C-alpha cells in the first residue's frame, strides 16, 4: 500500500504520458542488455571463452535495432519528457545505424581480445553503454541531454582506447583521446553556457525561438558575439567527435593505438552520431538568418565550409604518405568528414535545401559498413605482436585468404568510391548535393567545394589501390596467423554484402534515408515547408508509379 501511494505520488510528479515512454525504448533495451550483461559477467566461468558474451551483446544490439524498426512509424510529433528527447525516424535511423556498427564490430572482437589476453566482458559492456549514449544523443532535444549523452558515449570510448593493458601504445592512445576529448568537451560546455546565458534555455527549439526574439528586440549586436562564440564552441565540440579539420588531430594517433575492432566502432558510430547531432542541433537551434557572419556572411555555415575543404585536403594528402593502414584509414576518416561536411554545408545553407541532408545519411551508412568491414579484416589478422598494420604486412593476404581478400577489396573499393559499391553512390550523392545547391544559388563556393572533393577522391583512389596492390600483388613478408571465428566471418561478410547492396539496390536505403530526414522532429517552420513539398512530390510520384 505504501508502495502504491509512493507510485501515485511519482505519477503526479512525472507528467509525461504513457506514450512518451516509447521514446525510451531503444535506449532502454540497450541499457537493460548492459545491466543483464553485468550479471552474465559475474556468473562467468573463469578460464573459458567469452565468445558467447559477444553473441549476447550482439543479439541485444540487434534487438535494439529491431525495436527501432518496429517504432519506425510511431513518430511523436513533439519533444517528449519536457523537451528532453525526440522520438522520430531520424533518431531511430541513427540509433539503428549505431547499433549495427556496434554489433558488427562486437562480432569481430572475441578472437582479437583473446589473442591480446584481454578477453574481458567489460569490453562488450562498455560498447553497449556507449551505444546507449549514442541513442540518447541522437534523440536529444535539449543541449543538456545532448551533453550528458555525449559523455555517456565518450567515456566508454576513452576506456576502450586504452583497453589493451599490455600495450603501451594503447595506454598512450587512451590518454591522448581522453585529454583532447575532455578538453574539447570543456570548450563545448563553455559554449553551451554562453548560449544558455543569451537565450535562457537549453532546449533546442526554444533556443531558436529566443534567438529570433533577441534579434527582433534589436539586441543582436550586444548579444551576437556571445551567441556566436557559443555556437562555434558547440560546433567545435561536435567537429572534434567527427574528426573534422582542424579538430581531427587526435584521430590518427588514437586509431593507431587502440584495439582494432574498437577502432572500427569509434570511427564509424561516433562519426555517425556526431553528424546526426550536428544536423539536428544546428538546423533546429541556430537559425542562419540571425547568426550572420564570416566570409560568406552565412555564420556557422562558413565554419563548416572550412571543415569541409580543410578535411578533404588534409585527410587525403596526408593519407597518401602513410604506410600504416590503420593510420591511413584514420586520415581517410578525416577526409570523409570533409565529404560529409560538403553535404552539411550545402544542405543546411538554406531551408529549401534541407532534404538534401539525406545524402549525408546515405553516405554515413555506406561509410559505416565499408569501414567496419575494413577494420574487421584488419582485426582478423590482428594477432598480438603479429598484427597486420602496414601495407607491407598485407602482402599476399588476398591470395591466401580469398574470402578476407574479397571483403577487403569490396570495402576498400567502396571507400575509394568505385561503382557499383555503396561508396560510389554516397560520394556521388554528396557531390550532387553540392553542385545542385551551387547551381540553384549561383554561389560558386559550393562548386569549388565539390571540385576539391572530386580531386580528393581521385587522390583517395591512390592509397586505396595500394591496399589492393599489396593484398594481391606484393610478396608476403611473413607468415600471418589469422584470428578466425565464425561470427567474425559472418559479420564481415554482412559488411561486404551490405556495401554491395547499397550500391546496387540503393532505392530502398535512399527511401529510408529520405523518410528519416523528412520526419526529423523539431525542424523550424520554414524547413517544414520544404519537407511538406518533398512529401507531396513523393506522394505524387508514388501515385504515378501505381497508375
Amino acid at each position, binding site marked *: 500500500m505504501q508502495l502504491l501511494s509512493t507510485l501515485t505520488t511519482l505519477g503526479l510528479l512525472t507528467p509525461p504520458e504513457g506514450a512518451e515512454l516509447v521514446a525510451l525504448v531503444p535506449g532502454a533495451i540497450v541499457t537493460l542488455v548492459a545491466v543483464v550483461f553485468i550479471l552474465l559477467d559475474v556468473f562467468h566461468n573463469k578460464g573459458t571463452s567469452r565468445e558467447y558474451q559477444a553473441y549476447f551483446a550482439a543479439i541485444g544490439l540487434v534487438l535494439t535495432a529491431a525495436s527501432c524498426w518496429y517504432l519506425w512509424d510511431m513518430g511523436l510529433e513533439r519533444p517528449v519528457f519536457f523537451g528532453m528527447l525526440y522520438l522520430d525516424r531520424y533518431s531511430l535511423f541513427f540509433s539503428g545505424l549505431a547499433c549495427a556498427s556496434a554489433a558488427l564490430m562486437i562480432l569481430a572482437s572475441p578472437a582479437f581480445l583473446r589473442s591480446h589476453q584481454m578477453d574481458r566482458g567489460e569490453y562488450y559492456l562498455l560498447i553497449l553503454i556507449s551505444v546507449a549514449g549514442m541513442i540518447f544523443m541522437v534523440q536529444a532535444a535539449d543541449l543538456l541531454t545532448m551533453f550528458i549523452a555525449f559523455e555517456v558515449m565518450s*567515456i566508454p570510448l576513452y576506456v576502450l582506447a586504452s583497453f589493451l593493458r599490455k600495450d603501451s601504445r594503447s595506454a*598512450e592512445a587512451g590518454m591522448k583521446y581522453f585529454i583532447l576529448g575532455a578538453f574539447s568537451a*570543456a570548450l563545448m560546455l563553455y559554449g553551451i*553556457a554562453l548560449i544558455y546565458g543569451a537565450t535562457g*534555455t537549453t532546449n533546442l527549439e526554444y533556443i531558436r525561438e529566443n534567438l529570433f526574439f533577441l534579434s527582433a528586440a534589436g539586441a543582436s549586436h550586444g548579444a551576437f558575439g556571445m551567441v556566436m562564440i557559443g555556437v562555434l564552441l558547440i560546433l567545435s565540440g561536435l567537429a572534434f567527435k567527427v574528426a573534422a579539420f582542424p579538430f581531427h588531430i587526435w584521430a590518427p594517433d588514437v586509431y593507431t593505438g587502440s584495439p582494432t575492432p574498437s577502432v572500427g566502432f569509434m570511427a564509424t558510430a561516433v562519426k555517425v552520431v556526431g553528424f546526426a547531432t550536428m544536423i539536428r542541433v544546428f538546423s533546429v537551434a541556430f537559425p542562419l538568418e540571425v547568426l550572420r557572419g564570416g566570409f560568406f556572411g552565412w555564420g556557422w555555415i562558413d565554419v563548416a565550409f572550412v571543415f569541409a575543404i580543410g578535411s578533404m585536403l588534409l585527410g587525403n594528402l596526408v593519407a597518401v604518405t602513410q604506410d600504416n593502414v590503420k593510420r591511413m584509414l584514420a586520415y581517410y576518416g578525416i577526409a570523409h568528414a570533409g565529404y560529409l561536411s560538403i553535404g552539411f554545408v550545402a544542405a543546411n545553407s538554406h531551408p529549401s535545401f534541407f532534404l538534401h541532408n539525406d545524402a549525408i545519411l546515405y553516405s554515413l551508412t555506406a561509410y559505416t559498413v565499408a569501414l567496419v568491414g575494413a577494420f574487421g579484416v584488419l582485426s582478423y589478422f590482428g594477432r598480438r605482436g603479429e598484427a597486420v598494420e602496414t601495407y607491407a604486412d598485407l602482402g599476399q593476404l588476398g591470395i591466401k585468404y580469398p574470402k578476407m581478400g574479397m571483403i577487403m577489396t569490396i570495402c576498400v573499393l567502396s571507400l575509394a568510391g568505385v561503382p557499383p559499391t555503396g561508396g560510389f553512390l554516397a560520394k556521388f550523392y554528396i557531390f550532387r548535393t553540392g553542385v545542385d545547391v551551387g547551381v540553384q544559388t549561383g554561389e560558386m563556393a559550393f562548386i569549388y567545394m565539390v571540385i576539391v572533393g572530386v580531386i580528393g577522391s581521385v587522390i583517395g583512389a591512390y592509397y586505396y589501390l595500394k591496399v589492393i596492390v599489396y593484398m594481391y600483388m606484393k610478396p608476403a613478408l611473413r607468415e600471418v596467423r589469422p584470428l578466425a571465428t565464425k561470427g567474425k566471418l559472418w559479420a564481415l561478410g554482412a559488411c561486404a554484402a551490405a556495401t554491395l547492396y547499397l550500391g546496387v539496390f540503393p532505392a530502398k536505403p535512399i527511401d529510408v534515408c529520405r523518410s528519416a530526414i523528412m520526419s526529423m522532429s523539431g525542424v523550424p517552420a520554414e524547413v517544414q515547408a520544404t519537407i511538406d513539398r518533398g512529401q507531396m512530390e513523393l506522394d505524387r510520384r508514388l501515385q504515378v508509379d501505381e497508375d
Partner: protein
Amino acid sequence: MSWEPTLAHYLILSAAVFTIGMVGVLVRRNAIILFMSIELMLNSVNLSFIAFARYRVDLDGHIFAFFIMAVAAAEAAVALAIVLHVFRHKRGIEVDEMQELKH
C-alpha cells in the same frame, strides 16, 4: 565596472578561470595537473551557468551545473585510472613523454 558585483563580474571571473584552466591543460606536462586544469575549466563553466541562472531567475542553470559536477566526477575517475595505467607502462606521467604514436 562598479564595486558592486554584477553579472559581468561573475562572467569575467569565470572566463578568466576558464582561460587559466585551458592554459594549464596546454602547458602543464604532469598529467595529474593537466586533469586538475580540466576540472578548473569545468568549474568555471559552472560558475557561468550559475551566474546566468541567477540573473535570469531560472533554475535550469543550476541543474546544468549539477550535471556537470557529476560528469566531472566520472571523468576524474576515468582520468585517474588512465594516469595509473600510463604510469605502469612509462613509469612517469608526463604527457610529453608519450610520443610513441606520431606522424
